[in-house]
């Protein structure tokens, strides 16, 4: 593949779209008596139903000494319920050619169901069972803990994993976003079965959840399924999230990790913004021009197209409830690392110092608004989008309004947000590679200190 993940950051930031040729989604939104937000869009092009559920439970809700609690809870949902063993759940769902799953992310836990229409009753039965009735058997808890720890060991051989972990740790200075969602070996060991039962009981409550159902299912059919399988989900108080704003250390920080590798994996960045920050749209346009726009971006143009120094270089601002991060990622042969870091810094200084040209600005806006239909061209993407729009509080008219937000961005806005959010001097830099070849020291290419 010519580009591996250049556009992935854009997809990860899944709220970029324009209604130029808007799909008519006909979304209905209901708040059920127990507090659950239910979103529904009927799509009949194939006889399939896709479900995406957000439960507001994640690393922000767990004690640091038990980091990984939200993740372990999610991983164990389908490992045994009051009436089904782990094996009965997997063979039951797989016999239908369907899938269920749950995983935790930085801001929330996400559950999914993918099932053929003809099997949807059985699919919802199992989905509701793992959501409402998990029993966290001791044997499964021990097994899954070992599995997660082994996977962490294996990931040590992945340079991008090692770099990402070090980058977040350095950047977030004790904030939960600085930890791995999975936790570490030490914190996973500290989690008990009681912790899992209590976490599930406190956070998996209807008023703390969003359910998006998309596909070949009518309002009546959905109503019947909800009655049959979610009626017992009683309203409970929604736990309050005690949010601590991530704080910036205010200093430059360089982390060099020595590994026997041919390439240096470089991460460069800073704290970013919250998803609900009004600057989000100007930042989207600015980042597209800098490093988010694949082959249309300045970083790709310089580092790959002109100099052949990397296969992939990209930048993105993460989409987070709290202050996320700005991150440039690039891999280059060890020897080229200092040169690539210099180019990244020069491009950042450039966009902070000089207004972008009219063509660059209009190209960025045309892409961000014109690529709208692709943000929602499958049932799965629509279900994920609807639940995320709800979670971030963007409103269902967001889809209609998005192009106006983007089109309103001016060159002055781009310059302003570049100056405000990009790091000139106080950046965080992580390099994983063979350091005797990179020649990097504590102070790589830093001439102003």
């Amino acid at each position, binding site marked *: 593949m010519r580009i591996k993940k250049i556009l992935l950051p854009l997809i990860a930031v899944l709220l970029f779209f324009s209604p130029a040729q808007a799909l008519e989604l006909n979304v209905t939104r209901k708040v059920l008596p127990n507090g659950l937000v239910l979103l529904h869009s009927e799509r009949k092009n194939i006889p399939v139903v896709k479900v995406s559920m957000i439960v507001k439970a994640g690393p922000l809700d767990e004690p640091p000494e038990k980091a990984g609690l939200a993740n372990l809870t999610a991983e164990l949902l389908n490992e045994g319920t009051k009436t089904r063993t782990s094996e009965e759940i997997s063979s039951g769902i797989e016999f239908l050619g369907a899938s269920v799953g749950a995983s935790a992310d930085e801001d929330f836990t996400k559950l999914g169901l993918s099932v053929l229409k003809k099997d949807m009753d059985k699919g919802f039965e199992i989905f509701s069972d793992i959501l409402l009735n998990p029993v966290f058997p001791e044997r499964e808890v021990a097994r899954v803990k070992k599995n997660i720890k082994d*996977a962490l060991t294996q990931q040590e051989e992945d340079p991008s994993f090692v770099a990402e972990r070090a980058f977040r740790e350095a950047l977030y200075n004790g904030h939960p976003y600085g930890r791995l969602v999975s936790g570490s070996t030490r914190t996973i060991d500290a989690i008990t079965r009681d912790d899992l039962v209590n976490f599930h009981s406190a956070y998996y409550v209807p008023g703390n959840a969003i359910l998006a159902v998309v596909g070949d299912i009518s309002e009546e059919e959905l109503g019947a399924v909800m009655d049959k399988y979610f009626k017992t989900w009683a309203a409970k108080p929604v736990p309050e999230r005690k949010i601590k704003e991530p704080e910036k250390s205010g200093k430059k920080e360089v982390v060099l990790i020595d590994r026997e590798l041919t390439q240096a994996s470089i991460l460069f960045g800073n704290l970013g913004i919250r998803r609900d920050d009004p600057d989000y749209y100007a930042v989207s346009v600015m980042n597209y021009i800098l490093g988010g726009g694949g082959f249309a971006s300045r970083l790709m143009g310089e580092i790959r197209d002109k100099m*052949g120094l990397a296969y992939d270089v990209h930048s993105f601002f993460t989409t987070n409830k709290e202050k996320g991060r700005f991150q440039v990622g690039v891999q280059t042969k060890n020897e080229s690392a200092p040169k690539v870091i210099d180019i990244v810094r020069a491009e950042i200084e450039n966009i902070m110092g000089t207004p972008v040209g009219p063509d660059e600005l209009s190209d960025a806006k045309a892409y961000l608004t014109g690529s709208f239909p692709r943000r929602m061209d499958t049932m799965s993407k629509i279900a994920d989008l609807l639940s995320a729009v709800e979670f971030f509080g963007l409103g269902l008219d967001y889809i209609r309004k998005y192009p106006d937000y983007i089109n309103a961005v001016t060159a002055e806005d781009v310059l302003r947000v570049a100056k405000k959010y990009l790091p000139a001097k106080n950046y965080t830099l992580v390099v994983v590679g063979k350091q005797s070849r990179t020649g990097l020291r504590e102070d790589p290419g830093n001439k102003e200190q």
Partner: protein
Amino acid sequence: MVQMPRRIVILIAFFFLLASSAWGEVKEHVFPNGLKLLIVEDHKAPLAIVQVWYRVGSRDEEASFSGVSHLLEHMMFKGTQKYGPADFSKLIQRNGGTDNAYTTKDSTMYYETLSADRIGLALDLESDRMRDLRLDPKEILSERDVVMEERRMRYEDDPQTSLYEEVIATAFRVHPYGRPVIGWMSTLAGIAPEVLKKHYAAFYSPDNAFIVIAGDADPQETVKSVEKYFAPLPKRPERLEEARPVPSEPPQKGEKRVYLKKEAELPHIMAGYHVPVLPDKEGYALEILAGILSGGKSSRLYSRLVYEKQLALEAYADYSGIHKDPFLFFVGGTPAVGHTAEELEQALYDEVERIKKEPPTDFELEKAKNQAEAAFLMGQDSIHFQAEILGMFEIIGDWRLKEEYLKGIKEVTADDVSRVASKYLVPENRTTGILIPIKNEKTEEAKPGHHHAH
């Protein structure tokens, strides 16, 4: 993708499951210059995808120029007589679209996904680069460096994909499937501009390509539009390399083993058995065999080795029948911490022996078939996959094979599954690779390996 690194293999097998039956109706049109056009209508969203497939991949390369097809794929974005070296993707993205390409052993595919009313732009750009590629020597050198960086990222620094590369290189001594699609560092260094030019001249022409368009497109309009841009392109009478035969792999007469020592955290074992591919009937049985061994947590390998015995962090079987020539059926896995590659290897072989003696139950067989069918149906939500499936089958012979696929899957019996296992999954036919993790001493001393400075 340029190769099939193991983690991607599983994904491809999944796509392969989508690959069957008659969902969207296909309209075929062949132009006088030999270009074939396939159209699938899907009006659920105002989007369309244009995929241009060339019948050339690493299978068609000379060993000393291994990687030339993939490098040429990169160069297709670096300018023509009409457009500059950075124009292609900018034009597509300015129109809200996205574009990319990949090279496999058998094919090279380029695509643009965009608003259905703009497919003319994609067709204009694609027809232009089918004929008038610039291939500037300076750009070639720079792009060769980019591909070397890609190789470092995907292979050199990834122990499991490195092992995959070793296993296929050992399994195939004669047939070109033993060579990596991306090429070796040494062959990449030896690809001069003239080699690329010759490859382009030999393989890039309308009679060696076909186009698949899926999405919100009117078939009649689409045929007219393709005709406008591609009909003027001539056939190439002088295709030098077309006549070069691809040698078949002689039968393997005994197990081969290969060990890879590399900095890694956990060992890995991967064994490949030579097997037939579609449309051979046994391909369907091998597909179901892989599903029974490896399709989800209730599969034999997961439930026995990962869940019950807790021997493995992961265990898999993998097979894709969509190859032009016979390829490999893989079994493999990563041992859980505290277990060795040899223990896991033996446990994998035990499961292979078991399925020869104990045919799958009715439940297992039906589950594997249901999984194949459901995955196919769900794939039809994506215009990319609808087009890609047709392209993959057309590359191996005929897009109509897609319509046979689900029928072939349904006809597989429990005895068929045991029979293909007994016939092919035997030690003499196996190439086994073992990854032996080594630790760099310096890195060990420095552990946790962090060097902080402020």
